[in-house]
């Protein structure tokens, strides 16, 4: 048996890739919600919301009603999202200044915010703004405002770090973005609601066993 075949046998399931993960999150966003998407995989989520399902995307830099990425030859250089990517505006969209934009966020007017994270604790703490690395200065952007302001905070992240440590933890090791803020976590292995009793499993990728999942999860999984 070659090493390759052996590897495949050991992995009886296929983790979601980035688009699979974005698609999984998109499936749960109903029509009519106002949603802010963080940088990275969260931004991809918009691409998997069907065009006939009206979801209103908000960007911190004063844009509501963001539409799909423009074709190269139709870029409008004055219209970017919070990730500094060129975007379009849907019919019904609007522009406003930063204080009004964060009034929307802080005032609880967003139905949902989807953020990436380094870690999420079983009590819903989120750490996503600094790894305490000495290589770069800390930067927080709008993450703390979004984490406390939106009606719901969902996190999208890899289930484990590159060196295999759990990102779903009992207590975050990195500085918090907000305590007790996360409602749901989507990883490349499974989906969980954060409940008083811990990580409540909603679904997992086919072929994955609960034992295997718990082995890569530090917090308590309940079913």
């Amino acid at each position, binding site marked *: 048996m070659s090493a390759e075949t052996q590897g495949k046998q050991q992995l009886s399931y296929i983790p979601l890739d980035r688009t699979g993960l974005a698609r999984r999150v998109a499936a749960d966003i109903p029509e*009519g919600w106002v949603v802010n998407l963080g940088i990275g995989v969260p931004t991809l989520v918009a691409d998997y919301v069907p065009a006939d399902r009206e979801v209103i995307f*908000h960007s911190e830099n004063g844009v509501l009603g963001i539409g799909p990425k423009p074709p190269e030859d139709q870029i409008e250089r004055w219209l970017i999202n919070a990730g500094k990517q060129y975007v379009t505006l849907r019919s019904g969209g609007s522009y406003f200044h930063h204080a009004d934009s964060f009034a929307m966020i802080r005032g609880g007017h967003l139905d949902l915010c989807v953020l990436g994270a380094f870690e999420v604790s079983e009590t819903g703490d989120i750490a996503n703004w600094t790894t305490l690395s000495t290589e770069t200065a800390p930067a927080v952007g709008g993450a703390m405002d979004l984490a406390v302001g939106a009606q719901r905070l969902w996190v999208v992240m890899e289930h484990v770090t590159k060196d295999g440590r759990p990102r779903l933890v009992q207590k975050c090791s990195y500085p918090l973005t907000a305590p007790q803020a996360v409602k749901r976590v989507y990883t490349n292995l499974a989906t969980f609601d954060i409940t008083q009793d811990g990580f409540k499993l909603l679904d997992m990728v086919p072929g994955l066993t609960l034992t295997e999942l718990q082995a890569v999860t530090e917090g308590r999984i309940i079913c």
Partner: protein
Amino acid sequence: MINKIVRSVAEALDGVRDGALVLVGGFGAVGQSNQLLEGLIETGVRDLTIVANNAGYGNVGLARLLKLERVSKIICSFPRIAGSTTFEELYKANKIALELVPQGTLAERIRAAGAGIPAFYTATGVGTELAKGKKSAEFDGKTYLLETALKGDIALIEAWKADRWGNLTYRQSGRNFNPIMATAARTTIVQSQHIAELGELDPETIVTPGIFVERVVHIPHGDPQG
């Protein structure tokens, strides 16, 4: 498809309860949601707390709601009804409670509620009767009062144009308290003079983005009354 436009005032006001805190836009006769207020009277709700700059105008809308004794408390800066003694009579008869708030503090308390700011400091009212019972603090050697956010259960708003997402524009001094009240209620209900197609309103000139609005009803009532 998102469609916040409802067919009638009754539908727009569905679910309003006794005891609600109601934000009522308008200044003078301009920007008053009179038809929504008349509809509110029709629902029969009572024991309301009203937040409005004045106590109504003429004999319609808020003025009539007060006269029918549906309002137990009013929070406002200038509790007068032009050309009417209704408020004064209720006040003298102890049939209505008054929380008098300076106009700018009233506006900022409403804006704060919409912006998720539970409280802020202002110099307005320091050293006056209206500072009584309020916390104060010093910043840079100057004294300020702590004022808290004023959030509504519903807001009754008048707009000039609205679309099905609830985007709004206003007309001239009809803007006044309407845009900030629209941000500050659990349910924001709009009567609009005109209904626009989605995309018809210029995104640069929308004053109230639809995110703040729950229901819109088309009321082409014409010029302000009074």
